[in-house]
């Protein structure tokens, strides 16, 4: 098992390196000179050259890459070409915001999806199961930004009970923090819940078909009790996997909801960086997002190795 874990870690490190090269190379081919863009439209060639030297964009690409990548492990993403401020703290600020949003949405999704999914599986032959399946299908089909727009229209504009958007840090005012979080979390979470419900249902269905659960049911236990006694752990593995990856990909997926609700999250930072041609910033944000997915993948795989005896043997 140790060998397996070590091998997995090696793959992770290699993936990180490969990802950083990919991201850097991709940004290096971006048209437009950051120095020129930072200085505005009719700057003198001398000042452009000076700024280029200050940015370090006049160095060979390999040197630039080495400089960039060596800072990453300690959270040094360089300084923005546009705002001339350090990128690391900016990303940190935004990650916190997006994490709040994503984790709360995921929690909401879990709260909704677990009972609904189990219900849909246990009652999959009855009408209630079908209704849950149908509703979850509909939920997946509604784009989260449409859900967001409708929520704002109803709850913020028409009823005026919740703010239409914006962000208040929890430390500044916990009450306002929660009020501002409700609508975006619902917009994001409900769609997530719809997706998750389908996974929970299928995972539970799979477990219900396992021999040991069938035996338990043959002894007279209802599906839920049989499940409760024997199956939850097994059903939980695939669900946790999906959940973890949902969280990782939602970091960027939340960008649409961030835009609708004017939330200064990671996705908005990426969009702003793109519009301002803030290369290093974009590079940094993309890298953070990619590392998040890779890291979650790693954790999930390690979890498997630890939990699942079959994989451990194999």
């Amino acid at each position, binding site marked *: 098992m140790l060998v397996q874990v070590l091998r997995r870690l090696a793959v992770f490190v290699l993936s990180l390196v490969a990802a950083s090269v990919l991201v850097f190379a991709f940004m290096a081919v971006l*048209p*437009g000179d950051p120095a*020129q*863009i*930072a*200085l*505005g*439209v*009719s*700057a003198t060639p001398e*000042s452009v050259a*000076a*700024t280029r030297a200050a940015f370090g964009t006049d160095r060979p690409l390999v040197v630039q890459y080495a400089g960039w990548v060596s800072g990453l492990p300690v959270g040094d993403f360089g300084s923005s070409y*546009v*705002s*001339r*401020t350090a990128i690391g703290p*900016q990303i940190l*600020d*935004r990650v916190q915001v997006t994490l709040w949003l994503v984790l709360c949405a995921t929690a909401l999704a879990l709260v909704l999806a677990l009972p609904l999914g189990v219900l849909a599986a246990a009652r999959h032959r009855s009408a209630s199961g079908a209704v849950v399946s149908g509703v979850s299908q509909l939920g997946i089909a509604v784009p989260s930004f449409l859900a967001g*727009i409708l929520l*704002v*229209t109803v709850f*913020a*504009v028409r009823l*005026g009970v*919740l*703010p*239409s*958007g*914006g*962000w208040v840090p929890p430390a500044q005012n916990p009450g306002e923090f929660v009020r501002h979080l409700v609508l975006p979390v619902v917009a994001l979470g409900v769609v997530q819940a719809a997706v998750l419900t389908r996974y929970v249902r299928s995972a539970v269905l799979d477990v219900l078909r396992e021999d040991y659960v069938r035996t338990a049911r043959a002894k007279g236990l209802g599906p839920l009790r049989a499940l409760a006694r024997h199956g939850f752990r097994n059903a939980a593995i695939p669900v946790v996997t999906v959940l973890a990856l949902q969280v990782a990909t939602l970091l960027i997926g939340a960008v649409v909801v961030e*835009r*609708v*609700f*004017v939330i*200064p*999250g990671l996705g*908005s*930072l990426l*969009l*702003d960086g*793109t*519009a*301002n*041609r*803030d290369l290093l910033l974009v590079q940094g944000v993309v890298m953070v997002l990619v590392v998040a997915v890779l890291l979650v993948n790693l954790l999930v795989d390690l979890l498997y190795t630890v939990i699942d005896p079959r994989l451990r043997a194999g």
Partner: protein
Amino acid sequence: MSLPSRRRRALAAGALAVVLAGCSAGSGTSEPSSGDPAEAAPSTLAVGLAAEPASLDFTTTDGAAIPEALLYNVYETLVKLDSESGEVVPLLAEDYEVSDDGLTYTFTLHEDVTFSNGDEFTADDVKYSIERVQSEAWTVSLKEAMSIVGSVEVSSPTEVVVNLSEPSNDWLYRMTTRIGAMFSETGVDDLANTPVGTGPYVLDTFTRGDSLTLATRDDYWGEAPDVEEVTLRYFEDATAMNNALLSGGIDVIGTLQSPESLERFADDDRFEVLEGTTNGELVLSMNNARPPFDDVRVRQAVRHALDRQAILDTTYAGYGELIGSMVPPTDPWYEDLTDVAPYDPAQAQALLAEAGVSDLNVAFRIPNLPYAVTASQVVKSQLAEVGINAEIEVLEFPARWLDVVFQQNDYDMSLIAHVEPRDMTIFADPDYYFGYVDPEFQSTLEQAGTADSEQYVELMRQAARQLSEDAAADWLFVLPNLIVAEQDVQGLPVNRVSESFDLTGVTRA
């Protein structure tokens, strides 16, 4: 939908004047109550604006959002532009005198003015600030306007003399813009994050991607503003900004980006809609430097092919004003030139035939700004009527549009609002992306620059007409300034003729 008629708009403007008069009276009478410190909670205001500053340093970073937030509020200038009259009025300079030959400006400064870092503001700072614009420290292109200054002499702590190398009708006006901002030598270390000026407000917090908060300072030299804390909140999305106002997240929409929603606010008792004007000419540029638009007849054909009222109706719900040249109605040399190239598709087709072009395909490269995306689609449809196929290509603003259109001049037609004040001169720059080179126009402007003030206006008027007749571009209309505010907010800068969103006169009842 029904469009506001000219008459109705004229009425609105009239009502506005009354409101503004009322507001100054109102603030006078409310003095006693706000003078009771025990009761008065700090008055706050949240204003929604569209573009967020990329940095807070306008000396090295271009973009209108920085002076919009900081000029007159945090930084002050010797003279400022009055947002009502559009005239140059004293600010840090108590008074100024211009010599008869137009070469020497003598400014008398207010006493007891301090920077927000506590340092005193004196004539030395004026010298320092002006010379700093000319130095390498300033990198934005606007600094060129300061190159005309030959020397700055400090004659006493409150008197400074600026000598120009040649007379200029423009320089004093430029001193009301960001290049006229007064800096302290001890306050320029971290301009991108910590601005230090003499203005009534200081930067409190700047949360990127969200908002910027200004707070009043105790030791301001002039009359303290009524509102003690102003939050400028930035919205990428026009609808999000509207929703914020409707749900109480902000008190004012600084510039309404989605005019169609105006009806919603106009019908609501809680809000007041203010319509003013701007310096923003929406320019449909045609690349004069290359075919097909190197032919004046083709350019004129485009102008005749466009029904500008229809474009205005679709893009700004009928708000805004048709102009016909590169001059907004608030400039002294404005003249209605809409009759130079009226909407006349038959004439357009005749001109195209005369020029010998048919089945014209043009690359229409526009920035991804809401008004450009909307207007371009109407333009495309109208040009199709006369047989011109404009292929719309949307480029991200600022980066890609600046790169492709502005720098490389790789375009046939584009569309963007030029919001800089008194910017007709850009057509005299042969390197500018219009590719318009006309010695006669250039010499007219040159003469105007040094002429006496009466002649100046006449020559500028002549230049504008020349530009229009030559179809150097098409000027679709001047952007309206649409503000929506809660009823109790008064004194907002209704006309956006300066670079600043001037908060110093704002009051809350």
